[in-house]
């Protein structure tokens, strides 16, 4: 099996995540799709670290994980705040600027 298969898998998972961000309306599911995209990028980093024979790619993947954790914490807090005031977690309902 060529090692590039991992890169193909990462590309496919990233694409699925991107579709999810566009298609789904529940803010929490949108967030999960963003997590999926970050994970796909991490897989590519780990694969490239193996191809290049040094650990820098793994370090970057490690930093990505920490940043993703921060992003989830703050993002979910924002979702909870919006839910408190608008009683909905749908991304379509947060349209105050439109009206």
């Amino acid at each position, binding site marked *: 099996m*060529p090692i590039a298969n991992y890169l193909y898998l990462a590309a496919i998972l990233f694409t699925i995540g991107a579709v999810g961000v566009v298609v789904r309306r529940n803010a929490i599911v949108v967030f999960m799709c963003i997590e999926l995209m970050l994970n796909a990028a991490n897989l590519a980093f780990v694969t490239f670290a193996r191809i290049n024979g040094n650990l820098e790619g793994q370090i970057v993947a490690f930093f990505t994980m920490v940043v993703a954790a921060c992003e989830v914490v703050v993002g979910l807090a924002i979702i909870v705040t919006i839910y408190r005031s608008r009683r909905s977690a749908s991304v379509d309902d947060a349209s105050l600027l439109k009206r």
Partner: protein
Amino acid sequence: MINFALDIGTTAAPESYLFYVLAPLSVLAAMGMLLVKKAVHSALLLAWVMVTLAIFYIAQEALFLGIVQIVVYTGAVMMLFLFILMLVGVDTSDSLVETIKGLRAISIVAAVGFGGLLVTLISRATFGRDVVGLSEVNEQGNALGIAELLFTRYVFAFEVISALLITAAVGAMVLAHSQKTRSQFAQRDLSIARFRKGELKDAAGLPSSGVYALHNAVDVPALLPTGNPAPTSISAVLEARGDMIESTNFQLKEEAEEDK
């Protein structure tokens, strides 16, 4: 014709089997994440994708990252997602009806285009050399190798990341904190409210539930001096649930005959 197996090396047979079994499963789970209706099911499918990715990391000689992936992602992040789902609950946002006309068709076309672009780019890329592999840098163990890099060349980034984590924690606390608009009712407030209600019948508090020789519980109403059960002596919840016992069950038979 696109060559799908360019010259960046191959893996050993066991790893190939692992990949060919787990990769379709992870892609299926990721697709299912978009298609299932309930957000909880999406979360579970995403957890599965993350576990397969952790297995791939370990297969690719990134043992430390594989463990971190399981602990941080499937452990902490997905649990956080499930907690927020529990807080927010189920509402209309779970429906799969498309609100913008043609959005789904456009997004599928765009996804096929984008994915095709990525795949062809990867397949046409060349490195001009073989895969190096990590056996050399992982000689003393993967965790040690990562620690060596992390605390020498990337120590500044590491410190900045720690500041980011603290900031995120404080930010989440500030965002999720909500000021109470009124103070909680204390015993004093309840007493004042009872006296200001208009009628002073319940000013001294509601009667307690019945205490009988054969039964002593909150589900039996007390008897008024007239002999009738007092409905206010029972919690409204018990009454609504139908968990109330008639207090006449515990009256003495002779007394009942005397009343006649």
